[in-house]
């Protein structure tokens, strides 16, 4: 979706604000929100791509106003509701409905530490032939899907070169919508800064974007 989250190349966001000796979390609720997001994914009612899309769907003005972990909280609530794991009444009251059966958490403390809170790997061993090879000129397709995508707007329609093939990964555009993994190759594609931003950019500089087969066409 052409959301405000896709902000590469935008102006007007202000200066970068740096905090010396920044703590990992600024408040306990941030830490709890982070850990809840990681561990609830183990129920496999959604995946990483779906959880990113849940945050992208926050209305643009809200997205820009909210702090980082507030977005994570809102995203998690949305996923819990759409998956049916928790009802709105339960979230608002802070208590389970009376007749709810008690489940067994899928992740122990030991497993949480060993996995760093991750659920599986998005890399696939599937023997899928690559559509492109190192050094090949390519064009990023001009795609504007209303759903989830990882093809940033600033790269669409631009010419680049395959820098390296990273192997086979699940495809976010289908995976986020529970339409299958559609495993395919991901490449680092090198785009000259001038191809992306015009003559005011440095002639030496480049942006490397990781793109799936389905985002590319031969050039």
């Amino acid at each position, binding site marked *: 979706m052409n959301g405000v989250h896709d*902000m*590469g*190349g*935008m*102006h007007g*966001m202000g*200066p*970068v*604000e*740096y*905090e*010396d000796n*920044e703590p*990992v*979390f600024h*408040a*306990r*609720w941030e830490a*709890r929100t982070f*850990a*809840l997001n*990681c*561990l609830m994914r183990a129920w496999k009612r959604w995946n990483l791509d779906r959880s990113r899309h849940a945050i992208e769907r926050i209305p643009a003005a809200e997205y820009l*106003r909210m*702090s*980082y972990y*507030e977005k994570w*909280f809102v995203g998690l609530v949305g996923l*819990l509701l759409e998956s049916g794991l*928790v009802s709105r009444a339960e*979230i608002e*009251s*802070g208590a*389970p409905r009376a007749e709810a059966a008690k*489940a067994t*958490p899928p*992740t*122990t*403390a030991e*497993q*949480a*530490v060993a*996995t*760093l809170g991750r659920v599986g790997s*998005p*890399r696939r061993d599937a023997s899928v032939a690559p559509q492109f090879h190192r050094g090949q000129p390519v064009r990023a397709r001009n795609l504007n899907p209303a759903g989830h995508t*990882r093809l*940033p707007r*600033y790269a669409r329609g631009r010419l680049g070169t395959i820098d390296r093939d*990273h192997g086979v*990964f699940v495809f976010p555009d289908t995976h986020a919508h529970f339409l299958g993994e559609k495993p395919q190759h991901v490449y*680092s594609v090198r785009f000259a800064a001038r191809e*992306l931003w015009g003559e005011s950019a*440095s002639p*030496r*500089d*480049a*942006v490397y*974007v*990781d793109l799936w087969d389905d985002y590319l066409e031969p050039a």
Partner: protein
Amino acid sequence: MAQAKHDHQEVPSDLALRVKALESVLVEKGLVDPAALDALIDTFEHKVGPRNGARVVARAWTDPAYRQRLLADGGSAIRELGYGGTHGENLVVVENTRHVHNLVVCTLCSCYPWSVLGLPPVWYKSAPYRSRAVIDPRGVLREFGLDLAEDVEVRVWDSTAELRYLVLPERPAATEKLTEDQLAALVTRDAMIGVAKVSP
């Protein structure tokens, strides 16, 4: 680059309560183990962070064969030092030289190499950094105090997929006599994102 305002997070006052209520429901329903929440938070507050990445960098500076393995397959090389977790990290390590400077960003969200750098700082996840790093990397770097010469090529890595990027900074001059531990102590988080160099 501005110093972060103390109240940079304008959080509704009831958010802490809403998170607490949500956690209560999830724990009561047996959907999440509170001990697992505590353990994961403790891991990222105390065990996983930029010191991991600094050890990787110092090893690469002192062991040429390790440096080769790190650049060829970052995920396997950090596993040698015990990093990456049981699922591994799809890590790509990009090397700074006199002629090439690398900078890492995630314009679409906040992808970051957790296993070697821990969780990202607020500025990395912020709209100003995400929007500007790709269109004006030299301007962003100047705000961080790094003014690169025209003949240096800037490579910006936008983490749009499940690869995670770590910058292998240049080893500073006159550090030949330092031990691996002493070298690791010089390596900062910012240098491994690419917004700073390592100072001797």
